[in-house]
């Protein structure tokens, strides 16, 4: 893992946000969060329902304006008067929850072209981007001329993902990209996102509920609880806080539970294993049971 901690893709500086400020249903969604999202890696954002994850990531591209604090993208405060918020949205590509419901154009390829067209791209460059984005998200070329309402759910999800990737954002943010997909679909879409990160060298933020998914695909993890970031570290270190995670209504991956159980039985492989492969390596390293 070559983690480029020097390069910072985006940063929150003490941001807060309250919904329905001033009326009866006031709700503090984000409470003075400071967080640096590093470049060239996949960052996972986990937290129980209502912990403020979605609000926080909507701040990254200016869909939500923080009441307090600053959001820094590419070294500039996105709410600076000189910054056009649309330009920020081209740099930070946001794929919302259930993005398949935002498809609207007559054909899949035209829908994918919507973002780049808004950026002012046309002609061959536009075609190239659409084709490339479709390839990245695993869309069959012969689907491109179909109506987005005639393709299957999983294909719609990929088309919506392609629509954001086609803008080549330097930071790709996805809100539960695998929600509602079957296991094969989950693996496929998350694998493609990871692949996109590796090949393009851009940064990715994934919001998820699934501990298995973030364990497998994320280099760093941020844990949110009641509007605050409570843990932010490399994935293995975050999962070594099993007790705290469970207190917040979250969990650890199954293999971490196995490791915890093993430790209780006297076989200490460490409480920070989070993938099966890693657990096996640890066991071999410690007890030499490999051969």
């Amino acid at each position, binding site marked *: 893992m070559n983690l480029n901690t020097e390069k910072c893709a985006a940063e929150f500086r003490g941001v807060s946000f309250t919904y329905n400020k001033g009326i009866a249903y006031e709700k503090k969604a984000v409470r003075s969060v400071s967080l640096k999202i590093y470049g060239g890696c996949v960052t996972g954002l986990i937290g129980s329902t209502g912990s403020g994850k979605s609000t926080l990531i909507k701040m990254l591209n200016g*869909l939500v304006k923080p009441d307090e604090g600053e959001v820094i993208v590419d070294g500039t405060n996105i709410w600076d008067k000189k910054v056009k918020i649309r330009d920020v*949205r081209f740099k930070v590509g946001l794929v919302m929850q259930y993005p398949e*419901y*935002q498809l609207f*154009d007559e054909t899949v390829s035209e829908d994918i072209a919507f973002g780049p067209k*808004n950026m002012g791209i046309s002609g061959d460059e536009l075609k190239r981007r659409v084709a490339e984005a479709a390839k990245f998200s695993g869309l069959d070329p012969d689907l491109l001329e179909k109506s987005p*309402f005639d393709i299957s759910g999983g294909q719609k999800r990929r088309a919506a993902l392609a629509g954001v990737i086609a*803008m080549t954002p330097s930071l790709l943010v996805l809100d539960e990209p695998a929600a509602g997909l079957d296991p094969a679909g989950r693996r496929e879409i998350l694998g493609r996102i990871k692949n996109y990160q590796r090949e393009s060298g851009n940064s990715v933020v994934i919001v998820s509920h699934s501990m298995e998914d973030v364990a497998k695909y994320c280099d760093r993890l941020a844990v949110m609880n009641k509007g605050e970031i409570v843990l932010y570290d490399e994935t293995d270190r975050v999962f070594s806080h099993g007790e705290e995670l469970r207190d917040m209504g979250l969990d650890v991956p199954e293999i971490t539970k196995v490791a915890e159980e093993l430790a209780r039985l006297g076989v200490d492989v460490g409480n920070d294993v989070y993938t099966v492969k890693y657990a096996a390596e640890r066991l071999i390293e410690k007890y030499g049971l490999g051969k």
Partner: protein
Amino acid sequence: MNFDVAFGQYCEGDSILHRLDPRAKIIMSLLYIVDVFLAKNVFAFALLTSFTVAMAVLSRIKPRILLRGLKPVIFIMIFTGVINVFWYRGAEGAKPLVDWWIFTIYPAGILNAVLIVLRVVLLIAGTSLILTYTTTPLALTDGLERLLSPLAKIKVPVHEFSLMMTIALRFIPTLIEETGKIMDAQKARGASFSEGSLVKRAKALIPVLVPLFASSFRRADELAVAMECRCYRGGKGRTRMNVLKATFKDFAGVIVIILLGVSLVLLNKYTDAFALGF
């Protein structure tokens, strides 16, 4: 995007206004509208205003919420106010207050404008106090269905209409939320809804409207299936969980509004004060 629409904004509470039978409240608000237009002179307006204020106090709804409900009609209020200031002269031979270029303002004009604007304010505040703020949308359609049920005898599908209304009301917040989500998603792809010419802005709505329609149809389909699964077959032979029962206080409420109207007519007739010009 801000949705400040005070549509069906029910304010939870347990005041006498909240507890009235929805049928009584529908009749009361209709009569109240008549009352508002009956008021002609300053004394009548004073009575009507104090009556409405008394209702506001009784309902225990915060004044701030009431004022917010007036926000959408501010433009209409200003417009009618300004028009009336310039157009009404009052009695023949009255002296103008201002006479400059094409603008002539008479004292009667100002008073007239004030009363007209007051009429709009009372109309909205009063009806929302009796109906929308204190009645749940469900109780409202329920009451309407019962009030209109005699029409079922002449083959008017009253139950179906009220069901359609209930469903429509139920889905307004859902659709507002959905619209917000889709707009956010398209904004994230660089769509802009507040720039460019009118045609350009109208075109910018296509990426919002198409998914919104698609999801509405999907929802309608799902709802129909869910209703069929629970053996819904229309209004015939359906019983209700909450049967509306009119009590003394419901009749009293209607009578109070009628009495208000009578007193307004009497005040118009027997007191001598400035009256609306038309």
